[in-house]
């Protein structure tokens, strides 16, 4: 097998575009050379906050925000440069030698990759994180453990940057696990309540189960290719390398299992709604730019593998994505907790992205990720603003907030419309592209499910808007608009939620900056996905009609007069309602079928081992230590060392007692001694000379 590493150009590369013309990629200059700084800064901020945060005015938020602001500026430069000319720059430094496996010497490398995909992610993570951090200063004001909260947020964003900047799969796993750890810390931020820490554990463990797939997949690919670099993998996939072809489907599916965990695909979605236990800024960050996008990112990063070799894995991936997008959307219909509505909505939208990427829509999936990040962060932050005012997560405690919270209301409506896919907001264009991809690739049935999903999306978002902002207020006290530091980020997110769609209207290129397709297409290996040349108005009409129908129905049921709203909200379809209310019984199934049968015996076995094995060892060690101590004290110290010192001191005393008798005090005796001495000296002098 040829050395695949040699095939990979490191600095300057050209790639075959879809139409066959070469896409020139430039190295990107100093900002690309030093892009690794973006990966390091949040960790420096993390350390700074840990050590100095409590002494600062805003308890360390300054450092987190500062680091992210630098990152955003840096990423923006790259982002704009990449619009004009595609950038590719890869940097790796060898950290350790793993050893020889088969014909290859595997090495562990760290570094960063700067290309269209990672630049988009760098920018998105920095942009959303910065706004969320600023918002969190207001939201977390006076809360518990604020310093630790911002330290964890920095860790979270930093891990995500390490993940998206990874030039090889091992570094990706490091970032992947870092994200998992930080999410665990943040979900369990209010750990005083049992269910919050349980939610954190659930998120962590569910991810861990899925991570097994990722790790095995990476090992398989690493051994097959002789290296962990994505460039190696993608080039080999594009060349239909023989060794890779044999394992591609299995490895692709294993990677997909990992992605299912992070991106909350059915049936690994169970952790995401529970992850709402964390503070709302965490939810916004987790659902928009970091964490859940990691799985989609992985699928996009390894896209050539699925496009060229692992086609069979797609037969599983697409149905899972479609189940996720539809079934999880339905769950949002019955949730009372506003954050859970948004959480199920995220799962559903992740289903869209996964379906799109799996169906061959590299750009479509990423574009939906891009637009979704804006409006989902916006919706979560707006929901946080409402929760901040009402002091409850439940929509049954809200209602009629439209007048009291104008900024929150209008930004929430913009986010909802964008999510529902109303023309010309961002969500419409990205969802339309997914429909177009499914249609073009021949998955027409799935396309219709996606259209139905759009209807459900529009419906539950209208329900959320109606229950939260219209009708009559049902909570305690009088709600008020949030402080400026909280609604300014909302407005800042509302702008791209409206306009981000123009960057990828099919067939429209924005002069010198091209469009989103070109931006994320700036990669060494051509993606070879389909781009519609013009808007397919019939598909757009399906999506739009579904959205408008959903909004209309939602408005009819939940939007109108206050008196009947409550009665309508308690309207329950027999059969379907209990099913949805219990989340299809999946959680119960997992608990009864998987967790409890394992938990009991493991607990008992651990207890037995603890009592009989570990305790015995500990006791033996303790006994041994005490015996050695006694020996050393009694034998060595008391009888050996101490005796020696006592003898020395005693002999010195005896000598002193004997010698002091010479000091009689009689002057004449001294004089006699002088004389004798002098005589002896003189005698000696006379004799020896």
């Amino acid at each position: 097998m040829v050395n695949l590493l040699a095939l990979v150009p490191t600095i300057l590369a050209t790639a075959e575009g879809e139409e066959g013309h070469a896409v020139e990629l430039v190295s990107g200059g100093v900002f690309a050379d030093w892009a690794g700084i973006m990966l390091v800064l949040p960790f420096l901020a993390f350390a700074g906050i840990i050590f100095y945060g409590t002494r600062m005015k805003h308890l360390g938020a300054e450092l987190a925000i500062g680091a992210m602001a630098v990152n955003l500026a840096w990423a923006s430069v790259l982002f704009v440069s990449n619009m004009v000319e595609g950038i590719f720059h890869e940097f790796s430094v060898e950290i350790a030698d793993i050893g020889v496996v088969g014909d290859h010497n595997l090495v562990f490398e760290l570094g960063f990759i700067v290309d269209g995909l990672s630049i988009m992610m760098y920018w998105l993570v920095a942009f959303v994180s910065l706004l969320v951090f600023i918002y969190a200063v207001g939201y977390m004001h006076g809360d518990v453990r604020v310093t630790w909260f911002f330290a964890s947020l920095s860790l979270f964003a930093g891990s995500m940057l390490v993940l998206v900047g990874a030039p090889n799969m091992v570094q990706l796993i490091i970032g992947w696990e870092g994200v998992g750890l930080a999410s665990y810390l943040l979900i369990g931020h209010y750990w005083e309540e049992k269910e919050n820490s349980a939610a954190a554990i659930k998120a962590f463990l569910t991810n861990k189960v899925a991570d097994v797939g990722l790790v095995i997949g990476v090992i398989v690919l690493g051994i097959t290719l002789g290296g962990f670099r994505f460039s190696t993998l993608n080039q080999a996939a594009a060349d239909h390398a023989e060794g890779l072809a044999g394992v591609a489907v299995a490895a692709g599916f294993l990677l997909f299992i990992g992605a299912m965990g992070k991106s909350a695909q059915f049936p690994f979605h169970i952790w995401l709604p529970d992850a709402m236990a964390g503070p709302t800024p965490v939810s916004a960050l987790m659902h928009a730019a970091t964490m859940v996008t990691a799985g989609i990112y992985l699928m996009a990063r390894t896209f050539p593998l699925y496009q060229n070799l692992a086609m069979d894995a797609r037969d599983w991936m697409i149905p899972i994505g479609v189940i996720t997008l539809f079934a999880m959307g339905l769950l949002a219909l019955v949730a009372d907790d506003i954050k859970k509505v948004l959480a199920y909505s995220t799962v559903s939208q992740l289903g869209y992205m996964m379906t799109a990427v799996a169906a061959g829509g590299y750009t479509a999936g990423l574009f939906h990720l891009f637009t979704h990040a804006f409006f989902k962060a916006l919706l979560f932050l707006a929901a946080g603003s409402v929760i901040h005012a009402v002091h409850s997560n439940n929509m049954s405690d809200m209602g009629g907030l439209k007048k009291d919270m104008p900024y929150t209301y209008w930004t929430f409506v913009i986010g909802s419309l964008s999510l529902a896919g109303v023309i010309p907001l961002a969500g419409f264009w990205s969802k339309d592209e997914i429909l177009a991809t499914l249609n073009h690739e021949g998955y027409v049935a799935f396309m219709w499910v996606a259209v139905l999903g759009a209807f459900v999306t529009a419906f539950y978002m209208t329900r959320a808007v109606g229950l939260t902002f219209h009708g009559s207020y049902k909570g305690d006290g009088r709600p008020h608009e949030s402080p400026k530091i909280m609604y300014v980020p909302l407005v800042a997110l509302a702008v791209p939620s409206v306009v981000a769609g123009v960057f990828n209207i099919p067939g429209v290129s924005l002069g010198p900056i091209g469009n989103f397709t070109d931006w994320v297409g700036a990669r060494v290996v051509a993606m070879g996905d389909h781009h519609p040349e013009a808007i397919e108005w019939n598909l757009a009409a399906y999506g739009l009609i579904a959205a408008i129908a959903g909004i209309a129905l939602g408005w009819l049921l939940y939007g109108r007069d206050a008196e009947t709203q409550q009665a309508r909200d308690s309207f329950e379809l027999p059969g379907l309602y209990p099913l949805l209310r219990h989340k299809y019984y999946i959680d119960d199934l997992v608990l009864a079928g998987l967790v409890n049968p394992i938990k009991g015996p493991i607990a008992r076995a651990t207890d037995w081992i603890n009592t009989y094995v570990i305790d015995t060892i500990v006791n033996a060690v303790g006994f041994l230590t005490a015996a050695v101590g006694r020996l050393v004290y009694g034998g060595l110290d008391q009888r050996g060392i101490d005796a020696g010192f006592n003898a020395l001191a005693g002999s010195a005393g005896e000598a002193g007692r004997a010698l002091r008798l010479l000091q009689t005090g009689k002057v004449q005796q001294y004089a006699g001694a002088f004389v004798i001495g002098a005589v002896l000296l003189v005698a000696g002098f006379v004799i020896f000379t």
Partner: protein
Amino acid sequence: MILNQFLVLASLLFALGVYGLLARRNAVAVLLSVELMLAAVNINLVAFEATLRSTFATGQIFSIFVITVAAAEVGIGLGIVLMIFRNRTSGNVDELDLMKW
């Protein structure tokens, strides 16, 4: 030889001083004995100078130094003895044990 006679005289005088220093109990007598020893040394110095004739009359000058130092020493010594007489009503050296441990 005239030098030998001076040396014999000096050694006799020195021996007498040593005897007095060691044997007499009275502190004043002990001091006198020390003066005798110093006088013996002076005789030696002057005798050698008279015989050898150095350029700068070293022996004689040195003896004058000795006499000066001896005078100072006797001044201090007698002062000490006087104080001891006053405080202890006895000038006997063997009864003094102030320097004992």
